[in-house]
């Protein structure tokens, strides 16, 4: 009996606390036009892809520190971070919390397409801008003819990489025919392959062989022998590093010495371990950014980043996180306030904002029209080759 009473008292305290907490947060809602403008960051800080989220957070923090030196019309940006634990359901909870409790003006995140997609509906419903630094899936912003008008991205989309690779093959490497190897279990790979084929053929090239495999295969000798028989001058291999590493190793052993190229799915140190540094010579990837780019904007960023994070070299995720903060700050400045609706409009009007990973320009699908870099593997190290503008 007494236990029940105690529990009752406890419960009523908890409820009272909840109500008070509610009051508290509503009283701060006026902050949107106060001294600071709150920005939410919903990132993968722990869990399976924690390295992505942590890199983005480092880039974000560096950029906000720089922006706050001057402030935006006298106001400072305040970053509220939320760890979505690399989990889509947590990402949804995070978006709800950031919007309803923290009253942020915009949300940055998440790193992966899946965790970003989990937040899209909430952002749309609450009319709060959502910017993903690195979510490359095209359906995040535009799906089935419907535009998610509050959702933006800082990176380019998947099919764009295929086009860039095709242009690089036909214009820089001057190859006339190519072979394509597709991971038929991955939409990413299929998307890149079809956009590559389209652009390569429209610039006069010919696809002489097309082979497919599924993720987790280990023996590719048979399809590689088929490809070798067609004598292509170039191989396009959009896949992920585990299989790509094996394919390159086996291709070189069979005597396929032509250039091989892929996308950002290759970007992992494990690739070098599997393929071996020697086999990777004469291979290329398209990526978002390179710390070896000679552009002064990039070099300033690399220097600033290494100053803040003890000589750590910033990867593409850190660069895109950094750029996202500038993308948003620029929009807030033009909007003249922290009002989400005005920020949305300003973000949409972004055209030619120079950032580390290129020039940001938002098109009608809310995708970026910006440059990609091409990296070449030399003895297991990525080296900056060229920057390709769309």
């Amino acid at each position, binding site marked *: 009996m007494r236990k029940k009473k105690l529990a009752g008292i406890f419960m009523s305290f908890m409820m009272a606390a909840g109500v008070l907490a509610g009051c508290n947060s509503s009283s701060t809602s006026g902050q949107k036009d106060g001294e600071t403008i709150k920005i939410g960051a919903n990132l993968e800080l722990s869990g399976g892809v924690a390295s992505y989220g942590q890199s983005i957070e480092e880039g974000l923090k560096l950029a906000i520190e720089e922006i706050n030196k001057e402030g935006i019309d006298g106001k400072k940006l305040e970053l509220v971070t939320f760890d979505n634990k690399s989990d889509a359901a947590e990402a949804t909870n995070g978006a709800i919390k950031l919007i309803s409790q923290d009253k942020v003006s915009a949300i940055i995140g998440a790193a992966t397409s899946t965790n970003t997609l989990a937040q899209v509906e909430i952002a749309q419903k609450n009319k709060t801008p959502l910017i993903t630094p690195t979510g490359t899936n095209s359906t995040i912003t535009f799906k089935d003819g419907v535009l998610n008008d509050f959702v933006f991205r800082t990176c380019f989309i998947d099919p764009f990489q295929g086009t860039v690779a095709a242009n690089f093959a036909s214009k820089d490497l001057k190859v006339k025919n190519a072979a394509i190897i597709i991971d038929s279990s991955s939409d990413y790979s299929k998307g890149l392959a079809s956009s590559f084929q389209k652009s390569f053929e429209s610039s006069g090239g010919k696809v002489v062989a097309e082979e497919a*495999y599924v993720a987790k295969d280990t*023996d590719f*000798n*048979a399809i590689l022998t*088929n490809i070798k028989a067609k004598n292509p001058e170039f191989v396009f291999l959009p896949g992920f590093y*585990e299989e790509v590493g094996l394919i390159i190793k086996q291709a070189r*052993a*069979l*005597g396929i010495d032509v250039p091989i190229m892929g996308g950002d799915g290759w970007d992992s140190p494990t690739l070098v371990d*599997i393929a071996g540094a020697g086999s990777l010579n004469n291979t290329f990837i398209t990526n978002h950014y390179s710390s070896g780019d000679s552009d002064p904007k990039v070099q300033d960023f690399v220097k600033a980043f290494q100053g803040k994070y003890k000589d750590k070299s910033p990867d593409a995720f850190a660069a895109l996180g950094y750029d996202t903060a500038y993308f948003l700050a620029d929009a807030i400045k033009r909007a003249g306030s922290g009002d989400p609706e005005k920020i949305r409009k300003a973000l949409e009007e972004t055209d030619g904002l120079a950032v580390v990973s290129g020039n940001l320009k938002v098109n009608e699908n809310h995708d970026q029209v910006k440059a990609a870099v091409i990296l070449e593997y030399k003895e297991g190290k990525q080296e900056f080759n060229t920057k390709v503008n769309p």
Partner: protein
Amino acid sequence: MEFLQQLVNGVSLGSIYALIALGYTMVYGIVKLINFAHGDVFMVGAFIGFYSITILDLGFFPSLLISMVTCAILGVLIERIAYKPLRNATRIAALITAIGVSLLIEYGVIYVRGAQPEAYPGDLIPATSIDFLGVKVSSQSLMILGTSVVLMVLLQFIVHKTKIGKAMRAVSYDMDAARLMGINVNNTISATFAIGSALAGAAGVAFGMYYTKIEPLMGIIPGLKAFVAAVLGGIGIIPGAMVGGLLLGVIESLVSAAGFSLWRDGVAFVVLILILIFRPAGLFGKNVREKV
């Protein structure tokens, strides 16, 4: 020329299957148990070889030996803990236990070290390609094929010429009669598992050397393929496993060569179904009538 190259590809793929199938078929031949955990012992063997090479800094052959010995112990442990209590249970109970053991090993390894792949160091055995009439044969695949043949001969010798081999054959023929004749059935079965698992461990290290990438779920597909290979050659027959493995590898390579690379795994299982329909005892098996 291209056809010849595909044939060579098939033989190198098939010699891995053969190496795994040897242990598989041996265990089946003696205790009539389809040991689904065999592919996972193969995976454990690959990892033990990897850690012996990278952490203990050993060469190829010492690592191979350590891996074989550890896998032999693992095989005996699995048999003693999971299969022995079920020796008189139905065959289906033992089969389900084998699947359970298989999952336990896979996810146990993931729990201990995570699911990320690991790459074998590439400089242990020189990976030179031998050019023969325009056909490229890698030295590593020759080594694997050689290992399979040597192990097959050794197994044949053990089974047919040694005392323990005699005991194995007796147990496989009639377990109870063997016991009545004073054969220690439990020890014989343990020895079978030890040899079979040691072979799986050797196959794991060879696989790691040849294909570089190893990961905790790598045993599933090669394990199933080895099962098909064993059935193809006649399960329980040692030279059958060898031929079945090589044949399966060649079939898969030719299917890919014909432009159906995505059907490769499917065709392997079609082969299994066909052989079960038309020649259930396998290519090397004799159709034995059940005793009445």
